[in-house]
């Protein structure tokens, strides 16, 4: 079993297709929706964590692409320069995935597992301590 994150972008018309149903039913892929921006009649995007066998993942992705959904592997990571952090909390204001939180001592904690790389923390940090890391 492999776990991989993808950014899915689909055209305005495919918003009504039961994408997740097919991925689960036909390819036995476990889906974790990390971020969703789907509005009827508009271009939509989804950030998904897909879990399945390598072969099923490959087939599932191929099926999505046949249906005009572009799938981009999410290899980006957010890097936090912890040493320079003053624990002001500005980044926690925009982090709706809950990856950046103030702990019980009001110090910042970063749980990269929860991070969906929405990148909102990058401009939100007044000390510019978040960087997007493109390494795998």
């Amino acid at each position, binding site marked *: 079993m492999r776990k991989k994150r993808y950014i899915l972008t689909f055209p305005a018309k495919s918003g009504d297709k039961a994408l997740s149903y097919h991925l689960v039913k036909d390819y036995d892929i476990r889906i974790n929706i990390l971020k969703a921006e789907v509005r009827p009649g508009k271009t939509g995007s989804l950030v998904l964590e897909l879990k399945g066998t390598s072969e099923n993942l490959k087939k599932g992705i191929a099926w999505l692409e046949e249906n005009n959904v572009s799938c981009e592997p999410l290899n980006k990571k957010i890097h936090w320069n912890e040493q320079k952090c*003053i*624990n*002001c*909390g*500005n980044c*926690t*204001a*925009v982090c*709706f995935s809950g990856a950046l939180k*103030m702990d019980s*001592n*009001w*110090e910042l904690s970063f749980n990269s597992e929860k991070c969906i790389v929405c990148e*909102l923390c990058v*401009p*939100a940090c*007044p*000390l*510019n301590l978040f960087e997007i890391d493109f390494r795998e």
Partner: protein
Amino acid sequence: MAIKKSYEEINGKIKKGKAVVFTAEEVSAMSKELSPSEIVKKVDVVTTATFGAMCSSGAFINFGHANPPIRMERIRLNGVPVYEGLAAVDTYVGATACNPDNPQYGGAHVIQDLVEGKELELEAWGKGTDCYPRKHIKTKISKETVNEMFLFNPRNAYQNYNVAVNSTEKIKYTYMGSLLPNMRNATYSTSGELSPLLNDPDFRTIGLGTRIFLGGTEGFVSWPGTQFNTSKPKNEHGVPMSNAATIAVIGDLKQMSSEYLQAAYYEKYGISLFVGIGVPVPVLDEDMAQRLSIRNEQIETMVLDYGKEGTPALGRVNYEQLRSGFIKVKGKKVRTAPVASLAKARKIADLLKEQVQKGEFELQQPVKMFPSNTSLNGLKEVE
């Protein structure tokens, strides 16, 4: 009989290393068990602190004279425009100053770089006069080469501050942080029950000359801060429910540390400076003990909509609610986040406590008290 303590008495104890000192948070917790009369018996000094972005900050610098000398009439420090209207080689670096071509590096960064001992490029121009013939200079300066450099912040340590939300459809980038659309977050700023001016709301001990912790070293309250406003409505606990009074502060920048002075850049807003301030408050009597006992749930502030013109008020919340992670605004549950560092404020309050305990930091009685009947003027547009 009610206990009263004088500054002399308290300073006497400090000198002997016998003063009993607690932080304002410790006293707030203590007040659940002890009455003000018991607290005044037990505690001599309470340390308060804050560490937040304070835009109205800056530093005076004297560069020294070159040979031949120049009357600096346009000045740049690392490309940042700094004030040129002060004699020949004096300047004021405003924290928010910046060169529009490089908006993410400004006066606050210049101040931080100087504090950290870095070398900065100074470039200045003058028209050339009989006594200052030179027209241009480009050189390097640092805290070692300049004569004086002192921080002088016209408006710091706001007594309370509002909560910011954004009811519009679009994200708003503000000095209160990035405000998500449709009130998906709310940001707040002060250190609540630890905040200096909330612990002495009527300025009985904080006034002109009060010795404070500023940016890592000793500083002084030098004047009521700009926009000093004593007419904001107060709640039943005696604290104003919105941004009210402020203090102007001064201190030797050469002695400061970037641990307590940090430059900041806010997206689509601009530069600011995080300033660490600690104020030791003497427990002179029962009334002061009562003031210092203030707790987060007793400190209220207004929720303002930063998305709308005139920032209309949407409700009132207290700091206990703000710290819980969620508040209710117009019936909607809204996630909260701080934009000032409580962790740093606590560090300052602890450090100051230790300094007072060890006899290294005596209290200075104000040489003049602040006015108690001020209000603010807006700016009228006249033909």
